[in-house]
């Protein structure tokens, strides 16, 4: 669905058309939910967070702008709410990763399967140790391959700030993974290679 289509739906939703708002939810819910899930590592909490995000969008419907897209506003709200949830959760034990043990079905042998699962577990655990904003920056840049401009919109900072945050988060993640796995799985970046 094009951005102009999103603009038309937003205009209708702002006039009180709930079907248009539902179409907007349908359009962006998967991305918002994925973002929430990667932040919280819990599907139920992620869905609650996504619902809360769209509720905020409904409450601030009149102030939303379709240029460039409302998804950045949604992701930013989800990110802020997720950070708050993680802060509250810091007093509680970390939520176990869901369904991770049943994955990696395409690995041939049980030994390779175990190694692969341990590797995934380690990477996710290291990601959880990052600050929420750093984790968002790393996941958006490397996993979702979003441009820095979008990351800056979601994090609410400038391009330079987003670049700095991605660089710092990657460096920290690298240290954590190396400490856990005992191997350097990352390639040196162009900047590091030059250095």
């Amino acid at each position: 669905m094009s951005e102009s289509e999103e603009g038309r739906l937003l205009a209708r939703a702002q006039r009180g058309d709930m079907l248009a708002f539902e179409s907007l939810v349908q359009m962006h819910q998967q991305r918002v939910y994925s973002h929430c899930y990667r932040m919280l590592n819990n599907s139920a909490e992620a869905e609650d967070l996504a619902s809360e995000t769209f509720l905020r969008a409904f409450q601030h419907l009149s102030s939303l702008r379709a240029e460039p897209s409302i998804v950045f506003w949604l992701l930013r709200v989800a990110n802020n709410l997720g950070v708050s949830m993680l802060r509250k959760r810091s007093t509680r034990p970390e939520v176990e990763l869901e369904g991770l043990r049943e994955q990696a079905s395409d690995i041939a042998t049980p030994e390779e399967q175990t190694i692969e699962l341990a590797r995934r577990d380690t990477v996710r655990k290291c990601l959880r140790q990052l600050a929420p904003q750093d984790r968002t920056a790393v996941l958006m840049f490397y996993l979702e391959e979003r441009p820095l401009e979008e990351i800056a919109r979601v994090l609410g900072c400038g391009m330079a700030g987003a670049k700095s945050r991605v660089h710092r988060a990657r460096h920290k993640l690298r240290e954590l993974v190396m400490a856990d796995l005992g191997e350097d799985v990352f390639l040196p970046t162009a900047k590091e290679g030059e250095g």
Partner: protein
Amino acid sequence: MNTDERELRDPALVTLLRESYRDDPALDPAPGRTERIMRAVMATAPRRQAHPFWASLAWGFGAAAMAILLLGLIIGFGRPGEKIVHRGPDPLIKPEQQKPDFKLPDIDQVANGTQPPRPKQAVIPDLAPKPEEKEPEPWPAPARQEEPVTVPPAPDQQEVVVAAALYEAGAAAYSTGDYESAYQAFQESYDTVPTPDAALSTGNALIRMAREELASANSDT
């Protein structure tokens, strides 16, 4: 991809993260998630007001201004103040009900004994309304019914004598126990003078006749 993004590029990390989140069922599109989100939004979202807040505020101010204006019109707001001037006796008060012109004597004059003579004591008129004695109107006399009195013609002497003789004969038969004869005699006597008035007249005639006979007897003697 601009220069900054190119500097940060790390395919190994991309692969590592993709592997970490590969086949994660939680990231698959879940059916009904949109509906669940919409239900949560509709259940939690406050009902949108039909009118914005400023409209309610404007209505409130307008109503208050109208109320103040109405109150001002009622109590005469903006009218020049009137001076209360004594204009003499109130025309609505009757002369006999007006307060008598009475002045307190000067206290110095009272003390010195030089006070002027007291005015004549005002006679308080009797303000009580006098009841007017009115004779009650006589009741209307009932309409007299002028019924024609039919006086039966007085029986002549002959009939009276006959009736009396029959009556005497009936009485004699009654005293002897011949009731049938007595009945017939009474009946004939009645038939001779049939009405009560006629019987009364008969009686009166008999008395008159007896008196006349007695008077004539006395005059004879």
